[in-house]
């Protein structure tokens, strides 16, 4: 990590750029840490060494387990020193090292002593450290001190205890909830931040109790809250109460609105803004309620602080979506923001103006934007383009100037995403505004004349093929299209040929000329282009006679392919000598799994530390891979492959993840291993699986990996037999065993002698959801009705206290591993009941549909009614068993 520093200094050798950490090296610092063990401690020197250690950690250096433990034990010696500065550093490094549970015991007594010390600084910090590293058992021992600390007269101590309480509430809620009396007292504290922390904790303790929150808010809104931060919290809680109570008091004044409005006159800007934003976000806010909030936001617009301007314009932008009229008063201030130094602010201002502008101001606005567009980044331009599209849809009469604007920016420099946004906008405008069609199509034609993006060219050609023939003079587009055949790459040429064919099919008058052009394409040097030309000439009757194009041909040319493209992969194996290919044999259901996996991997930034995963992970690829291994060939058809489960933490020596392959009577674990140490070559890599906690499984085969060189992933497999058709579950512990050989980094050659070694991996669980394929249905009700009640099983379950309804819904979906249908996995906020629809295919290819009805029973207890329909009654029962045991 010190490397960049050194390098930088080399670059500018004459300039003395001294850094105290120049050339720092982990090994040396760890050596230096031995001073912690000196009988005569030198606090200064110890502090310096801790700083160096923290510097290394901060630069991203990692300590191995052994190193961290060693440092930790050495650091604990420093509690002997009475030096305050050193103690302070000790606290920080203990938090950074995050010791394991058995190590924590070593410092517990020292920290507990500090917790009861007379020095405030010791008390406060010891509480923070101890609560950070402690587990539940220790917490009961120190609970008494924490309660005292909450009401400590020193604000730093009280805050430390309260903030620790907020963190602990996540892990040990039942303990923290016992502190509410003390916390309540702390809310009344005169110290600003204590009040803030106490309020945050008190609300979190009570957040599921609507009445209690209501009471808290009513009492505090009357009193005076001192800290601006606490006041912001109170505003948030108040708007929550308002949101939940509007249903009851639809008529009359909104409760607590006066409080929010009063906050607009607070002296702290953060409170004013919080209140203004809260008002704009009220459900069904009236323009009378909005006015005072808009007024203060308008003042912020002309502030000298960029942050204030940004906050205000961002909020107004949101308001403009629902209440454009309320924002028009700010238009003048907004227009001056177009030239704001901060381009985020300028873009937000522009898009707000585009939303609020009226028909007469459009032209003026467009002029301003044209100047503005040239000096902002693509990401902002895309936002502007989207805004212009909605404006155009709002004022169709203005399509001429807006369309001109779009075509102008289309001609200018820009990246793919930006160009795509413009093209998409033009396409939408053409579709929705008939008058804009002809000019829009011509703009697109001009664009493809020199478009560098193949994707956009083919999209536009396709669109031209559909819309062009319906225009008054289709012939004028032919020249643009045929030019593509001359000047473009094969993909675009093929697209252009298809488009020509569409014109030929739709416009009889053009047919002879189209035939001439298509025949010329027969001499193209690309197979696909020639094939398409031949195909179209034949289907359109290109043998000279101009005949009416029949419906079948039109269907073929314009109809969409109703099978998902991924499923056509089987065509690759298609052998032309067999019988003719039947499109109906291709399944029409989309296999959701490969898509989901693709999404998951594409979301991760590639090449950023994530170890390269093994082979391509689509089901087809897995199937091919497994069937190529003789040991597994007899297992039958692969039912499901799970997503990879990581068995090691990121950035360890060996990265291993596992894919669970489910067969009818077998389970195969595919371990994808990566060796991240350049100096090592691993041989004979196997995973030793202990299935003692998975009784129904018996190991039948194991396929070791012969060699695992640095940074090139390999796979090893272990297969288990299980009772046929039974969804057995269990836990497997894994140990990576291998022979390690040293590699000379300069030659890349491995030494002859290797050492046998083992590496503990994390446990792997086989759960019921592994036997369920996520397969969606488009119309759940139809599927449900047609499945019939023969094998329906209905029962009710109590799920116990849950954080929220959404959490309960997610838990059940994950437990079953089924595909949520019709977006029912999303629970609207604050709802008291919810219905969720799931579908899937269970082991043995049994279709399963599930209807879940959730309801809140009491403040937090969730009750659930589970109705299952499937093609097999045992499967229906199994689903109930899964839920009952989960």
């Amino acid at each position, binding site marked *: 990590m010190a490397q960049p520093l050194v390098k930088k200094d080399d670059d500018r050798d004459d300039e003395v750029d001294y850094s105290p950490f120049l050339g720092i090296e982990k090994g040396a610092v760890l050596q230096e840490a031995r001073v912690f063990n000196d009988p005569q401690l030198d606090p200064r020197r110890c502090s310096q060494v801790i700083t160096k250690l*923290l510097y290394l950690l901060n630069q991203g250096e990692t300590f191995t387990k052994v190193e961290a433990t060693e440092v930790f034990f050495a650091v604990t010696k420093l509690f002997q020193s009475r030096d*305050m*500065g050193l103690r302070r550093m000790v606290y920080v490094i203990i938090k950074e090292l995050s010791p394991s549970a058995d190590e924590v015991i070593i410092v517990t007594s020292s920290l507990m002593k500090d917790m009861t010390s007379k020095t405030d600084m010791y008390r406060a910090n010891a509480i923070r450290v101890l609560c950070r590293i402690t587990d539940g058992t220790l917490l009961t021992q120190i609970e008494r001190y924490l309660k005292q600390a909450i009401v400590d007269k020193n604000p730093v101590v009280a805050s430390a205890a309260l903030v620790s309480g907020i963190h602990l509430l996540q892990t040990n809620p039942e303990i923290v909830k016992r502190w509410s009396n003390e916390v309540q007292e702390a809310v009344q504290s005169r110290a600003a931040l204590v009040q803030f922390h106490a309020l945050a904790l008190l609300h979190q303790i009570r957040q599921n109790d609507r009445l209690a929150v209501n009471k808290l808010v009513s009492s505090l809104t009357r009193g005076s809250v001192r800290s601006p931060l606490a006041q912001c919290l109170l505003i*948030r809680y108040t708007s929550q109460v308002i949101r939940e109570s509007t249903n009851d008091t639809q008529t009359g004044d909104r409760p607590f609105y006066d409080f929010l409005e009063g906050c607009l006159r607070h002296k702290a800007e953060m409170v004013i803004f919080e209140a203004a934003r809260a008002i704009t976000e009220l459900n069904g806010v009236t323009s009378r309620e909005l006015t005072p909030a808009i007024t203060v936001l308008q003042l912020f617009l002309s502030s000298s602080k*960029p942050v204030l301007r940004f906050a205000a314009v961002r909020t107004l932008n949101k308001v403009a979506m629902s209440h454009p009229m309320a924002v028009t008063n700010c238009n003048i201030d907004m227009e001056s923001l177009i030239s704001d130094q901060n381009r985020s602010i300028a873009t937000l201002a522009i898009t707000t103006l585009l939303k609020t502008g009226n028909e007469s101001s459009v032209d003026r606005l467009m002029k301003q934007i044209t100047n503005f567009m040239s000096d902002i980044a693509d990401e902002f331009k895309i936002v502007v383009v989207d805004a212009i599209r909605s404006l155009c849809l709002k004022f169709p009469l203005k399509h001429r100037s807006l369309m001109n604007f779009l075509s102008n920016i289309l001609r200018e420099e820009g990246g793919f995403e930006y160009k795509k946004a413009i093209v998409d906008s033009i396409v939408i405008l053409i579709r929705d505004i008939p008058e804009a069609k002809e000019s829009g199509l011509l703009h697109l034609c001009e664009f493809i004349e020199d478009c560098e993006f193949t994707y956009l060219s083919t999209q536009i050609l396709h669109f031209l093929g559909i819309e062009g023939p319906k225009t008054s003079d289709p012939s004028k587009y032919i020249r643009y299209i045929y030019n593509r055949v001359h000047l473009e790459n094969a993909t675009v040429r093929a697209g252009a040929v298809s488009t020509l064919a569409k014109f030929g099919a739709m416009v009889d008058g053009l047919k002879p000329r189209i035939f001439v052009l298509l025949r010329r394409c027969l001499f193209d040097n690309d197979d696909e282009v020639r094939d398409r030309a031949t195909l179209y000439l034949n289907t359109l009757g290109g043998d000279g006679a101009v005949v009416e194009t029949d419906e079948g041909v039109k269907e073929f040319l314009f109809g969409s392919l109703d099978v998902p493209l991924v499923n056509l992969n089987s065509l690759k194996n298609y052998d032309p000598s067999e019988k003719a290919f039947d499109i109906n044999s291709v399944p029409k259901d989309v296999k959701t799994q490969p898509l989901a996996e693709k999404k998951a991997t594409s979301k991760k930034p590639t090449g950023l530390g994530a170890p390269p995963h093994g082979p391509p992970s689509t089901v087809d690829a897995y199937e091919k891979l497994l069937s190529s291994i003789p040991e597994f060939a007899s297992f039958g058809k692969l039912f499901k492959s799970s997503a990879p489960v990581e068995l090691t933490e990121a950035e360890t020596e060996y990265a291993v993840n596992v894919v669970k392959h489910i067969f009818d009577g077998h389970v195969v674990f595919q371990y994808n291993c990566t060796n991240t140490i350049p100096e090592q070559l691993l041989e004979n890599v196997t995973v030793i699986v202990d299935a003692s906690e998975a009784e129904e499984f018996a190991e039948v085969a194991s396929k070791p990996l012969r060699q695992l060189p640095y940074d090139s992933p390999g796979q090893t497999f272990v297969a288990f037999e299980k009772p046929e058709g039974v969804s057995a579950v269990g836990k497997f512990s894994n140990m990576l065993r291998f022979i390690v050989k040293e590699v000379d980094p300069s030659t890349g050659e491995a030494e002859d002698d290797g050492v046998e070694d083992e590496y503990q991996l994390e446990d792997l669980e086989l759960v019921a959801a592994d036997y369920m394929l996520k397969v969606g249905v488009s119309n759940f009700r139809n599927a449900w009705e047609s499945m019939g009640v023969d094998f329906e099983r209905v029962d009710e379950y109590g799920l116990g206290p849950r954080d929220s309804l959404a959490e309960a819904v997610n838990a059940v979906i994950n437990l079953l591993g089924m595909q949520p249908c019709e977006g029912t996995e999303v629970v609207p906020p604050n709802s008291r009941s919810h219905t969720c629809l799931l579908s899937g295919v269970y082991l043995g290819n049994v279709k399963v549909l599930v209807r879940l009805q959730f309801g809140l029973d009491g403040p937090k207890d969730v009750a659930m009614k589970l109705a299952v329909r499937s093609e097999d009654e045992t499967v229906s029962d199994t689903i109930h068993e899964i839920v009952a045991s989960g």
Partner: protein
Amino acid sequence: MESCPSIKNILLLDSEGNRVAVKYYSDEWPNNSVKEAFEKSLFSKTQKTNARTEAEIAMFESHIIVYKFVQDLHFFVTGAENENELILVTVLQGFFEAVGLLLRGTVDKKEALENLDLILLCLDEIVDGGIILETDANVIAGKVASHSIDAAAPLSEQTISQALATAREHLARSLLK
């Protein structure tokens, strides 16, 4: 929205985007390379802006980031997309003003590295696990400085009293404003 305002990270980078001190409170950045990539792209996105007189603000990868540059040091505070921008800027202000007090006005990379312990303590006093602990620069600096009293070295005590004097002076100035 009902939740407590929270800070996702606080970064102190130098004028080339290298780390001086950083602290992440959110697990959105699972490992060091992801963190470094974030810092790098954030740095290149903001480096051309003028954030010297007033703190600046940007939307970045669906975070709100407020930042301010002093000499060759770049201060950043990151929060969630829907966070109150003014709360974030209060934290930022507390951070760079406290650093200013602790470094006795000489706010640059060299001084910051030489007093890295103070910077780290300062970060520790501002935010705890994402929750704002303190935003008042004088209080933060006071807490950090008072801890550095070193019984064995009277020399350093003297410098600390100087620091406190600066703090007092600063307070007086802010009151007069």
